[in-house]
């Protein structure tokens, strides 16, 4: 399992710069990143090398921030991989709340996914021999 940093941000100029600036000051590196935008506000979701520190830095700066458990799924960077993972989860009635993906310098791609049933998802993905990332993998990317 991976700890994701989620942050409430108003949809206005400069907010992202401010987050990034706080991370720079604390030496935190962002591994994966996405913004879900919903009109007046957005939710910034990030996988970073040190989530506890990131949470503290942002919270102390007055941001509304939380740590959320999500899954990091390792995929081969070839067509059909994403569909296969979605199918495994779908068969067990596990819903994907949201997902985002990134590729690395190797042939692997990573999918970050929040699901309705995280324990169930870990089990079915494991049964399907799909590799899940933990925090040490994130730090080594």
């Amino acid at each position, binding site marked *: 399992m991976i700890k*994701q940093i*989620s942050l*409430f*941000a*108003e949809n206005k100029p400069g*907010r992202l710069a401010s987050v990034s600036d706080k991370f720079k000051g604390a030496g935190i590196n962002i591994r994966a990143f996405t913004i*879900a935008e*919903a009109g*007046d*506000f957005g*939710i910034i*979701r990030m996988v970073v090398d040190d989530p506890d520190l990131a949470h503290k830095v942002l*919270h102390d700066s*007055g*941001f*509304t*921030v*939380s740590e*959320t458990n999500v899954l990091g799924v390792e995929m081969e960077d070839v067509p059909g991989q994403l569909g296969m993972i979605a199918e495994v989860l779908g068969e067990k009635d596990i819903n994907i*709340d*949201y997902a985002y993906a990134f590729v690395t310098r190797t042939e692997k791609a990573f999918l970050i996914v*929040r699901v309705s049933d995280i324990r169930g998802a870990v089990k079915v993905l494991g049964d399907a021999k799909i590799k899940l990332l933990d925090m040490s993998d994130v730090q080594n990317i």
Partner: protein
Amino acid sequence: MIEYWNPQIERMPVEELKDIQGEKLCNLVKYVYEHSPFYRKRFDDAGIRPEDIKSLDDVTKLPFTYKKDLRDTYPTGMFCVPNNKLVRFHVSSGTTGKPTVVGYTDNDIKAWTTSLARAMTSIGVGRDDIMQIGYGYGLFTGGLGMHYGAEETGCTVLPASSGNTDRQIELMQDLGTTVIGCTPSYFLFMIEAAKSAGISFQDDTDLRVGVFGAEPWSEEMRKRIEESAGIKAYDIFGTSELSGPLFTECREQKGIHIWADQFLVEVIDPGTGEPVPNGERGELVITTLVKEALPLIRYRIGDITVLNWDECECGRTHPRIMRVLGRADDMLIVRGINVFPGQVESVLMKIPEVGEHFMIIVDRINELDLMKVQIEMTDVGFSDKVNDIINLEKKVASALKGVLNIAVKVELVEHGSLPRSMGKAKKVIDNRKL
């Protein structure tokens, strides 16, 4: 600790109090007719002679006085005494327009001090207490008014004034402050500031009582303050035109006692000017019975409240006004419906997922009023799923609609993004060109 500052007056039977009021009213009318060209003309225009006022019931024959009158006669056109009888000026903040000037004779200051000494005693504050006064000192009446009242009771006063929050918290701990007086919004700001410095008012200070006023606040906000700071929170009421802060709730917390030997209270229908029955909501009208420099006859304060002459459990016979529900001035009319910022506040206080800081923004788009309420997101309410936040906005909007009877757009904003205030909090931005 004493129970009453002046038991003989505070527990006087209502009939005797009303006799005193009648007598003082008749004298007042003669006094202002003789000493104030403004009132003489006002009475003459209304066809009233001082001798027409023979009893308390005749008060309704008298014309009203308005804030506008004070502005029109700026600075001292309504005063009844020459400068050499004045010992002090205060000047109102002008939150709702041009400032107004209030003058005090020595007796006016003494009466003001007495009023507050009675009030402070009624909440159990006295010589064993250390009171930190976080109301502004200076032209504003809050700081100096509370200061004199608290000192009169024998209480030790720390004249901290407003602002400089870190220092306030430090002094509170170092000197062992037991009572704080400031605006409720500033106190919430102090709680937040203390919390971020790792200080709990409940565990790390001797604070036991708060006296909050100068802006309307709700019963829910009281609960939140009392629980988070571990204190008893009391409402204080008064306006600069009447002298300044004058009256508080007693320990029963069931309304603010208005000293009837000093002030005559009426509650009227703001539309017709007729008195409303005991216990019904209306606009507060006050006549000053003992002021010398700037007496006010049937002054339309503009606060909406309920008057209650029933005897209080504290044993005081003086009437109570129920906590002020808002100012007629603060009232917004949105799509023809009356909205008080205080109503919005009480709804938000019942929803733990959102913070107590809010801003009402009213626009008129295509001839239609649109009311938006911005509210700060809290850690409690935050979910990283967009739908959860949209549902929270909907939940708040529907709670607001249930109370206000109009559709409201709710917008959650970042924590700390709405203005905090050291004095009166601004809760409304009205962009309509009416």
